C-alpha cells in the first residue's frame, strides 16, 4: 500500500509541474504590447447560452476597438476566455489564474452572482478590476472597491417597473412569480416595495427554481387570486413557458416582467401567448441610436441572431473598460480601477453608465411591450388590442 501512495503522490507532483509549465508558457507569450483582458463566463454547463453570448459580444467589441485603432495610441486588445461551468469554485480558480497573470489588466465577468461573489475576495486581495456585466447581487458592487456591476441594481429597475405597472398599466393588485436566485429575490423585493408604496397591493408571491418547466400548478394557484396583473422575474425561456401555460389555463391577465425577458426568443418560444407582455429594459435592439445600430447590425451579420440584453451588457462592459483604460492613460490595474470609478454617463448600447460610489451603475430604462409579435416601445404603441 505504501508503494502505491508514493507512486500516486509522485504523479501529483508531475501533474502540478505540468500545470505550472503551462501557466508559465502563457505568461511568456504575452509580452508584445497588447493589452490583455480576461473574460470569465460559463462556456459549458446549464448557463452556457449566456456565457457564449458574453464571449461573442466581448470578441466583437475587441475587434471593433482594434479595427478603430486600439487604445492608448494604437495598442490592441487581446482576450483570454475562461470557463466557469457555472460553478463558483471554478470561477474562483479562474479569478486566481487571471489575477496571477500580470499581463492581464482587468476581468470582464463572471455571469452568475454566486460566482462573482465567490471570486470577489480574490480580486480584492490581488487588486484587479472585476467588471461583471450581469451580477446584480445587492452586496456585489459594494463588497469590494475592485468590483463593478453595470447591469444596474434591482433598486433601480424594480421601482421603475412598479411605476410602469401602477401608473401606465393601471394595475392595482399584482401577483409576483420570481426565479429563486439572488437576482429574482432582489427584483421581486424592490418591485413589491415600490408597488405597495404607490398604493398597490401584492396579492401573492411565489417562486421557482432554475430548470423548472412546468408552471401550470403555480399559475393555477396564482390565477385563483383576484390579481389584475402578474409580475414575472425570470429569464426569457421561463417567461415564455409561463405565458404559454398561463394562456392554456385560460388565465387572461396583464403580464409585466423584468428586463431579463428582453430577448427575441421570448416571442419565438411564446408565440401569441406573450402578446401584450410588458417589460422595461435598458437595451432595445431597434433603437435608432447609431451606437446601438452598429452593435446590433454587426452582431446579426456575425452570428445570425439579434443580440439579447445579456449579450449587450457584455459588449458595454468591454467598451467601458476600453474607455476607462484610455482615460487612465495606462494599463496599471489600480489606474484602471480609479478611471472606471469616475465613469460618468458613459454612452453604452444598454443604457448609459454612471457608477455610484459602491460601483453600481445607475441606468435609465425604456418601457417595452410585445405588439403584433415584436418588441415595441410602449410609449409609442401602447397596449395591443385584445
Amino acid at each position, binding site marked *: 500500500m505504501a508503494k502505491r501512495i508514493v507512486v500516486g503522490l509522485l504523479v501529483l507532483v508531475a501533474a502540478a509541474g505540468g500545470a505550472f509549465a503551462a501557466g508559465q508558457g502563457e505568461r511568456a507569450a504575452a509580452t508584445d504590447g497588447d493589452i490583455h483582458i480576461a473574460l470569465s463566463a460559463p462556456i459549458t454547463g446549464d448557463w452556457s447560452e449566456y456565457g457564449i453570448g458574453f464571449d461573442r459580444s466581448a470578441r466583437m467589441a475587441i475587434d471593433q476597438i482594434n479595427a478603430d485603432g486600439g487604445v492608448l495610441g494604437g495598442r490592441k486588445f487581446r482576450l483570454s476566455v475562461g470557463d466557469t461551468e457555472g460553478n463558483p469554485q471554478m470561477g474562483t480558480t479562474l479569478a486566481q489564474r487571471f489575477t496571477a497573470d500580470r499581463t492581464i489588466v482587468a476581468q470582464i465577468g463572471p455571469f452568475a452572482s454566486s460566482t462573482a461573489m465567490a471570486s470577489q475576495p480574490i480580486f480584492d486581495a490581488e487588486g484587479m478590476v472585476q467588471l461583471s456585466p450581469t451580477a446584480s447581487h445587492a452586496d456585489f458592487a459594494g463588497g469590494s472597491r475592485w468590483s463593478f456591476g453595470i447591469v444596474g441594481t434591482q433598486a433601480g429597475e424594480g421601482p421603475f417597473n412598479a411605476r410602469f405597472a401602477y401608473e401606465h398599466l393601471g394595475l392595482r393588485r399584482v401577483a409576483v412569480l420570481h426565479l429563486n436566485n439572488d437576482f429574482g429575490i432582489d427584483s421581486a423585493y424592490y418591485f413589491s416595495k415600490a408597488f405597495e408604496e404607490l398604493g398597490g397591493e401584492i396579492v401573492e408571491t411565489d417562486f421557482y427554481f432554475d*430548470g423548472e*418547466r412546468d408552471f401550470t400548478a403555480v399559475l*393555477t394557484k396564482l390565477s385563483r387570486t383576484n390579481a389584475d396583473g402578474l409580475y414575472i422575474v425570470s429569464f426569457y425561456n421561463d417567461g415564455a*413557458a409561463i405565458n404559454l401555460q398561463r394562456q392554456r*389555463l385560460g388565465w387572461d391577465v396583464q403580464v409585466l416582467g423584468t428586463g431579463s425577458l428582453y430577448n427575441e426568443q421570448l416571442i419565438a418560444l411564446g408565440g401569441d401567448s406573450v402578446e401584450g407582455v410588458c417589460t422595461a429594459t435598458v437595451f432595445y435592439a431597434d433603437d435608432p441610436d447609431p451606437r446601438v445600430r452598429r452593435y446590433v447590425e454587426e452582431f446579426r451579420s456575425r452570428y445570425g441572431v439579434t443580440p439579447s440584453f445579456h449579450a449587450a451588457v457584455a459588449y458595454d462592459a468591454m467598451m467601458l473598460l476600453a474607455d476607462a483604460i484610455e482615460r487612465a492613460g495606462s494599463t496599471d490595474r489600480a489606474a484602471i480601477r480609479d478611471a472606471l470609478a469616475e465613469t460618468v454617463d458613459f454612452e453604452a448600447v444598454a443604457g448609459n453608465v454612471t457608477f455610484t460610489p459602491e460601483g453600481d451603475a445607475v441606468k435609465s430604462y425604456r418601457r417595452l411591450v410585445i405588439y403584433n409579435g415584436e418588441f415595441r416601445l410602449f410609449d409609442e404603441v401602447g397596449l395591443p388590442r385584445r
Partner: protein
Amino acid sequence: MLFVQQLINGIAQGSLFALLAISFAIVYGVMRLVNFATGSLYMIGAFSGFFIVRYVVRDVFVAIFAGAVAGYIVAFVLEKLAFKALRGVARIASLICTIGFSVFLNELAAVLFGSEVKSMPAFYGQTAFRITGVAVSWLQVVMVATAATVLIILQLFIYKTKMGLAIRTVSLDYRTAALMGINVDRTISIAFSIAGAMAGIAGVLAAVYYNAVAFNMGNLPGLKSFSAAVFGGLTSIPGAIVGGYLLGIIENFGVQIISTGYRDIIGFIVLVAFLLFRPRGILGRKTSM
C-alpha cells in the same frame, strides 16, 4: 374546482414522469442498473422531434415516432459501446458510465445544436376549453392520450409477445433464461433500447407541451422520475406508471399547498419517508418486471 384543476395538471405532467419512470424500470429490471443517462435520452428524443417538426413535417405524431426511433437507436449504441462490457462487473462502474454518457450527450448536444432554448412550434391552438371552471387544454388531452396509448402498447408488448416474455424472463433470472434458448445479450440490448425509446417519446411530448427544447432539459425530469420509479419498486412497469402519475399529482398539490420552491423535493421527501416504512416501494415485489 381548484382540486380538480391541479389534479388535471398533475396527470398531464405525470404522463411524462410515467414514461421516464418506465425507462428506469426496464433498465433496472434487466440490468440492475440505475441509468442516469435517461434524462439525456429524453433530451435526444426532444431534439429529434424538434428537427422533424421544424424541417420535415409539422405533425406531432411523426415527431413522437421520430423521438422513439432516436431514443431507441442512441440507447442501442450506448449499450453496445459500453454497458455490454460492464455486465457482471461491479455496479459502480456501470453507474459512472451512465453519468459519463449523460455529460457526453448533453454537452455534445450543446455543441452541435447550440445551448440556447429552441422553440417548438405550437400545436392544437392554445385555447383551453372549460368544464365548470376547470381548464383543460387540447394539448393536455393529446399528451395524456398518447402516453396512455404508448403505455398500453408497451404493456401488450411485454405481456403478449415472445420478446416481451424473453425480457421478463431475463429480468427474473438471466442464467436460466439462457438455458431456455434465449439470447440474453440481445434481449438486454433490446430492452435497453426500448427504454431509450420510452425516454425519447417522453422527450418529444415534453417538447410539445412546454414548447421548448434545450440541451439540459432532461436533467431535472431524469432525477425526479428516478423517484417515480423507486415509488413502484424499481422493477415493476405498472409500479413505475403509478409512481409517475402519483409524482405528478403530488407535486402539483404540493405547489398549491406549500410553494413551488419545494416542488422538486416533494417527491423525494414523500418517498424517503415512505421507504423507511416500506423499503420495497408500493407495488414492487422482489424481482417482478
